[in-house]
């Protein structure tokens, strides 16, 4: 057992840290449009510095980073409070998938532009009646001469309102009783008349997700990834590209907890810091144990990934623990602020957006597979328990 990083890894960390010190933007615009161009700029800066797509081969602009370097990358980005990647879907999902199974033409057309953020990608998976059960998608793609006409509705499309392209699942044939078959992956151009995007307002007032309405939207054969009707396998193999898994969330949890400690020291009611309250200390010690546990679990699973070459179903354990704990921790943070904790944004008792983060956290146990789905996965794939009955 050893928790130390190698010298090479530490040099990598230092290089990134130095780069971030010089390149990290100092102020974030609040207004929506300005924020989007800010994020696009940041993506370009990353690409220019060689800090986007670090795990990619050098020929595509990457630096062949190891898994441990990827972990360090996530740690440092969280540590520095770097802006989120506006092209997460492009860089972590579409790029690696195309490199592996894309045509040469697709690689040529898309990879460079997604690295630099010139083209933003979104993901077209969920539909109103296909949430936890993705295989129930109804969006159809019908061959019409040499083009495909796509009709249907997608939902929960992050950055859909600014995306240029969409990694889209559509049904190209019906195989009775086998819903996973007959699905195809298309690379859809979002800038066409058949695509209408409507933002969804989240309960915290923000708009990150969208509904996407497709009415005779057009794709060509050249836009198909892998084979027709075999999109489900493409989607599954794409998930495996996410080697570092929920690294960013894990380190964010760690940081969040440290912020919580700072908050309980700084925030005073009747002149007393919250941490002086023994009840609060007890709960904080419990949260410390559980967040440390979640982080250490992640490291243990990483060790397995390093040894086995690819991540196992244990990543569901990380996802479930981290999302549930994040929610609980933020609830606690707001709760202990007492009556003043109901205040919002600029009037909130302490300026760390605890209230907003709290409300946002309700999405973490739903998005990316609900906690119920994670529990099924763990039960069935880790513990070997019988599968749920399905009709």
């Amino acid at each position, binding site marked *: 057992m050893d928790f130390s990083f190698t010298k090479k890894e530490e040099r990598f960390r230092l290089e990134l840290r130095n780069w971030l010190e010089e390149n990290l933007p100092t102020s974030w615009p609040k207004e929506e449009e300005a924020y989007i161009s800010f994020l696009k700029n940041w993506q370009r800066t990353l690409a220019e510095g060689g800090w986007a797509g670090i795990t990619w081969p050098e020929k595509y602009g990457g630096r062949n980073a190891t898994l441990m370097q990827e972990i360090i990358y996530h740690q440092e980005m969280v540590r520095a409070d770097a802006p989120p990647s506006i092209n997460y879907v492009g860089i972590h999902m579409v790029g690696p998938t195309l490199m592996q199974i894309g045509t040469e033409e697709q690689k040529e057309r898309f990879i460079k532009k997604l690295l630099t953020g010139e083209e933003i990608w979104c993901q077209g998976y969920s539909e109103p009646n296909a949430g936890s059960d993705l295989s129930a998608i109804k969006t159809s793609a019908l061959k019409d001469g040499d083009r495909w006409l796509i009709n249907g509705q997608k939902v929960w499309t992050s950055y859909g309102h600014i995306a240029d392209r969409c990694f889209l699942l559509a049904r190209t044939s019906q195989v009775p009783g086998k819903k996973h078959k007959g699905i195809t992956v298309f690379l859809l151009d979002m800038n066409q008349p058949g695509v209408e995007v409507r933002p969804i*307002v989240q309960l915290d007032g923000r708009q990150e997700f969208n509904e996407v309405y497709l009415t005779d939207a057009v794709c060509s054969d050249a836009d198909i990834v892998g084979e027709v009707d075999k999109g489900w396998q493409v989607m599954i193999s794409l998930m495996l590209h996410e080697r570092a898994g929920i690294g960013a969330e894990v380190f964010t949890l760690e940081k969040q907890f440290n912020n919580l400690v700072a908050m309980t020291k700084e925030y005073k009611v*009747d002149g007393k810091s919250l941490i002086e309250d023994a*009840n609060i200390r007890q709960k904080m010690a419990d949260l410390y144990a559980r967040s440390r546990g979640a982080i250490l679990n992640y490291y243990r699973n990483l060790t397995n990934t390093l040894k086995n070459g690819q991540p196992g179903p244990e990543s569901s354990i990380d996802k479930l623990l981290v999302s549930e704990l994040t929610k609980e921790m933020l609830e606690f943070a707001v*709760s202990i602020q*007492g009556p003043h904790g109901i205040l919002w944004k600029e009037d909130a008792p302490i300026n760390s957006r605890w209230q907003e983060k709290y409300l946002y956290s309700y999405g973490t146990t*739903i998005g990316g597979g609900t906690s*119920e789905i994670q529990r099924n996965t763990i039960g069935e794939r880790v513990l070997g328990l019988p599968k749920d009955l399905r009709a």
Partner: protein
Amino acid sequence: MMDFSLNEEQEMFRNYVRKCLNEAGQTMVAREFTCGNTSEFIKLQKKLAELGCTGITISEEYGGLGLGALDLVPVLEEFGRAVLPGAYLETMAFVVPLLEKYGTREQKETYLPEIAAGTRSFSIAWVEPNKSYDPDVIECQAVTKGSSLVINGVKTLVPDGNQVESLLLIVRTDEGGNGDGLSLVLIDVNEVTDMKTLSSMDETRNVTEITLENVEVPMARVIGEVNQGWNVLKEGLLYLHAATSSMLVGSMDHIVEMSSEYAKIREQFGQPIGRFQAIKHRIVDMKLDLETARSLSHYANWALDTNQQDKEAAIYSARTFATEANIRLASHNIQNHGGIGFTMEMDCHLFLKRARFYENYMGSISQFREDVSKGLGWSYEKPRFQLTSK
């Protein structure tokens, strides 16, 4: 004879109120309110006043119905179901009982008929910036000047200060310790020097902060004895928290209904999701919480009306349980709805934010638990004021 249910009149009144709220679009009123459109709410308030809601606990002599806390229960449950905005709770379940018991003839004549008619409502100005509900940290001061009081200070977290006509203000009139030296003053909102609206997580209730600079009001505005305000206020809190519990029960009732109905129709994997025990059993636990909160709040209000020995324990038990359960339920409700539950489109978020609003409202869970303990004679020490809920 033992009969642990609301009587026919109470249930009938509930039906009137529900019909009225349904006609107004149920949660639509609250939704409009959060967008700054208060006209629907104002219209509805008038209708509710016509129904008699604003007169329930006011004695007949002053234009009310002369009924008790238990008669407020169905109304409050319905208001909670609709996440209704406004200071009905503070007016009817705090200021009215205090006016009825401690008000002078003049005070009663001034305020009660207008409250009954729905033309005057009250809020409470208690807590101060960066302060808890501990009486001994109150700094807002009122100094005697002839037959007047001159008030200086800042009060924050005043619920719906911008929606009401009057405030019940807690001020320091003497040096303190153990709650001594405080007085309760009835003032009109237009007497306040400054008022600003604060941003709040729960936009169905406005939160305001008021400033008082040399505000001069007649001595006759003090309710109860000067310097004895804390004891009067604590009595008012019994009414307020019993009523709050009922309002929370109403919210919980709506939440359980939402989750159950959604679980019957939403399908995944070819099944209504209510068939999966993860969802089904969670909704059952929510139902248990709801029924427990309802039983506790009904009993609490009955105990208050009939002045039972255990009324303090009953009221604060109901309050703590309903508060925590309501937060739990509102959270589960979002999870049960999945993605759609995370949007503004569904009502889920209204109930969550409202649940948080009442979490630390006029006290904290740990403080309420000490009140239960005291009510049952477990500890005779002065309960220390706790900063927070957890």
